[in-house]
């Protein structure tokens, strides 16, 4: 076993997941390919969304992959960091909006 949970080289082996379950693996990669193709949103726009989501789900493989991809697609550092701030705002907001639940409970329990 690896001494760390994450190994950058494992990203290149992502396709190997089909070895243990071919049908579902292939369906996933077909789906993945279709999702990231040019469509109502461009592949370029989707790449920036993926970069933001990678940070929201804190996936090191995805962050590596979509940092490279957004660089290749010509996004600037400012644009990439703003996308990460979007992810951070949603994550932060998701915690803070629960403050309303806390306030509701406080109000119910208080005299």
């Amino acid at each position, binding site marked *: 076993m690896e001494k760390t949970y994450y190994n950058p080289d494992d990203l290149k082996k992502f396709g190997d997941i089909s070895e243990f379950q071919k049908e579902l693996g292939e369906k996933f990669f077909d789906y993945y390919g279709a999702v990231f193709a040019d469509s109502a949103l*461009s592949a*370029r726009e989707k790449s920036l969304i993926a970069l933001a989501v990678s940070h929201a789900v804190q996936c090191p493989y995805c962050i590596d992959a979509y940092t*490279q991809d957004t*660089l*290749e*697609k*010509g996004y*600037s*550092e*400012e644009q990439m960091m703003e996308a990460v701030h979007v992810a951070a705002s949603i994550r932060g907001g998701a915690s803070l909006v629960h403050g309303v639940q806390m306030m509701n409970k406080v109000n119910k329990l208080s005299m």
Partner: protein
Amino acid sequence: MKSLIAQSHSLSNPKTQLDVINNHSEKVRSFDKFEDKLKEIDLFPLKPTGIEIFQINVGYMCNMTCKHCHVDAGPDRTEIMTKETLQYCLDALKGSDIQTVDLTGGAPEMNPHFRWFVDEVSKLGKHIIVRSNLTILDTRKFEDLPQFMADRGVEITCSLPFYSKRRTDMQRGEGTYDKSMKMLKVLNGIGYGKEEAGLSLNLVYNPVGAFLPGSQEELQQQYKERLWDDHGIVFNELFTITNLPISRYLNFLVESGNLEDYMEKLITSFNPSAAMGVMCRNTISIGWEGSLYDCDFNQMLKMKTNHGAPDHIKEWNLEKLNNREIVLNQHCYGCTAGAGSSCGGATV
């Protein structure tokens, strides 16, 4: 910053560079040889489709020392093509139907015979491309060159690795972006980049780091929007060029620990269609001392034309050169990755 050669750096030696891209590590040694990749698609030996572009490197002297430069050009480089060798080039051009003469360097403008040579080529009715770094035009000695080139219908292809100041200056040195914007406005002012004037102004994008260029069409759109919105600048086309693992860019890859991944990326992105359209099939490269090469990259690796073809401008023979076998090595993967790469941008 000094050139690698002025630093006596080991990677200023072409043999060392070739050794690194072939044998840097166990993994690098395990990569498929480029020649074998061409054999798989029945493209070996690689032969020219016919020389259409006569690319002359008129010298390695440059006013800049960019971090990615495959020429290792800079102010400390003294290699400059002599008038005698330029005359040999003219003699070769006079007897051929090659229509395009592409002048590169270094900063080609710094060759003391530049104006004379452009005039002579212009008299032959050839199309001339000058690869300019833009900043050289922002000096008193060269400030009249834009008009000189406009008067002779010279196409200007200039470096601008990104539309933002941060990334451009990171690669080409502090202040480059601002000078480049200033000179692009000067060029626009005399008609360059404007459809009606018929004076072509093209920009070259090359990645500022260990990654490949994205879609040329999309990047061109980004550049057009940003340069127009931010500076009111127009240009004709954007050419995306992949960085090849040579000289200073190779040094960057080694020092940053990116060499293995970058080579692997180039190789896994091998595109047979791009291989069909590589520029060495329609280009000949002439070095400052008159030697002939299949491309400017082979020139920097001192890999002259071979397999019985003439290897010096004094022995120019178009028929023999059109039937030569192109000399290959692992750096060639840089021109066949993804949408392909050439001095004229993507090839697919």
